[in-house]
């Protein structure tokens, strides 16, 4: 298993789409706060400090996570079906369950690295421009590490969902477009269904799709923490097991 994970990490390191995504998101992460800085300066408004910027914009990272998972799933995983590499992988004498697990770990690692770019790069830039400042009253010092930990956890959960659909579609174009639409629409769909069938409201409330928006909250009630932790973990396990099932049954063309 260890060698399979190493193979996936090696592929990730050499993957052009991963490099391009990192560069694009890093560039955006630099440009976004800079535009605010220039705008505020020319308008004579007070500048954001690093802490204020993080608290205000950390929720935007959710879009980056969704976009990058859709793109990486299409280019990093589905392209292996298109290029035929998956034939060599699947016939390498390794159990398909292990192959899928290694692929999921490599893919999640890539997505998790990307998910940290925006909060870390923009925070560093704004702090350099205007200083880190003070966290608002009532926000403890663990806010930043907690946000980063949850970011990683929720990215892994989204990656597990992305990998599952990639195993089903196997084509880059289909995978990317479906995941983009799915990740952008699922909140609306579940929310809308909940208005007619109440169980969907409960499902939505305890799904990673809803809870992703809560990880940047400055205050989290003690009672909410188990759900925030368990929901992504369960999502990873369930999506992972479903992915293994799909991949085991999949005929590779």
């Amino acid at each position, binding site marked *: 298993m260890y060698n399979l994970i190493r193979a996936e990490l090696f592929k990730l390191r050499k993957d052009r789409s991963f490099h391009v995504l990192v560069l694009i998101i890093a560039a955006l992460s630099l440009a976004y706060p800079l535009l605010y800085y220039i705008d505020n300066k020319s308008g004579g408004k007070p500048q954001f400090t690093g802490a204020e910027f993080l608290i205000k914009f950390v929720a935007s990272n959710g879009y980056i996570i969704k976009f990058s998972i859709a793109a990486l799933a299409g280019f990093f995983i589905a392209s292996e079906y298109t290029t035929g590499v998956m*034939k060599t992988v699947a*016939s390498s*004498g390794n159990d398909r369950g292990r192959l899928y697990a290694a692929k999921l770990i490599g893919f999640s690692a890539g997505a998790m690295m990307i998910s940290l770019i925006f909060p870390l790069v923009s925070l560093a830039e704004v702090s350099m421009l205007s200083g880190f400042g003070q966290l608002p009253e009532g926000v403890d010092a663990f806010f930043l590490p907690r946000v980063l930990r949850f970011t990683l956890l929720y990215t892994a959960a989204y990656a597990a969902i992305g990998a599952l659909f990639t195993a089903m579609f196997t084509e880059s174009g289909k995978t990317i477009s479906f995941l983009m639409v799915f990740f952008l629409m699922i909140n609306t769909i579940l929310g809308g269904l909940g208005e007619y069938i109440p169980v969907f409201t409960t499902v939505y409330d305890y799904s990673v799709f809803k809870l992703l928006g809560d990880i940047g909250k400055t205050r989290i009630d003690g009672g909410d923490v188990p759900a925030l932790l368990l929901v992504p973990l369960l999502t990873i396990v369930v999506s992972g097991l479903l992915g293994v099932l799909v991949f085991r049954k999949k005929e590779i063309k």
Partner: protein
Amino acid sequence: MSEYVLQTNQLSKRFKGSVALDKVNVSIRKGSIYGFIGQNGAGKSTLMRIVAGLAFPSEGTIELFGTGTERELTEARKRMGLIIEGPSLFPHMTASENLEVNRLLRGIPGKDCISRMLELVGLQGTGRKKVKNFSLGMKQRLGLAIAMLSDSEFLILDEPTNGLDPMSVIEMRELLKRLNHERGLTILISSHVLSELHLLASHYGIIHHGKLLEQLTARELNDKCQQYVHIKADQPDRAAMVIQNELGTTDFEVMPDGAIKLYGYREQSGKVSTALFSAGLTIEQLMPMGEDLESYFMKRIGGAGNV
């Protein structure tokens, strides 16, 4: 220890509304080069993909290196390499990097095998050149290096010479012969270029519409290919009747130009001419002839009308 690397037992594969493989029993001996002959869609690739674990049979079983359970088959696949429908490569990586991914995948310790394989296929000088900039011949050779990486004992090659220039075809053939001779490598190979296959294979399997029509050794094929007598008589229909009645065989064909191909009488052409003369026929031509693999294949599948 089984003397066969691969045996299939009543192997069938059905897709929606069509039968790709119909109760196929293939046996491939250790150390042989098995030429798999069939038209497009005959079932060659389907069988290869099932053996490689890429597709699943609808019915029947396979035995690889004498083992047959799912777990054992997965393990046995570590001892084989494949190129199916072109080499599977990462275009943005170098040759060494492609081999490194596969080395890690197969859990091969040490990196020595990479340089060894590059040397084996003559790609040691490609350095930092990305695979996307390789010629098709180079890609095929790299595909072969990947297939051989874990010192494979069994290679599955589906149309490995497709798109190659004549020089690369010869190089590939010589390389495969060398690997077979020096390492005792067993090879299952399909090709549309039957003359090419004829120069390489020690055994043949002919598949048509998903059915395995025949398995034979190169010697048996040569015997069969050379055993017909070409007869041109003034009255072809009567000649055919005489052959059937006097020689008691129906193993002959009347060609559109009236010539008769009589099989199995190559060594007894005197008997044939006596029978025809005795019937008062004028023989314009009577000579033992051979045919190539292509003609034999066409005959086995029932002529060009069946293609």
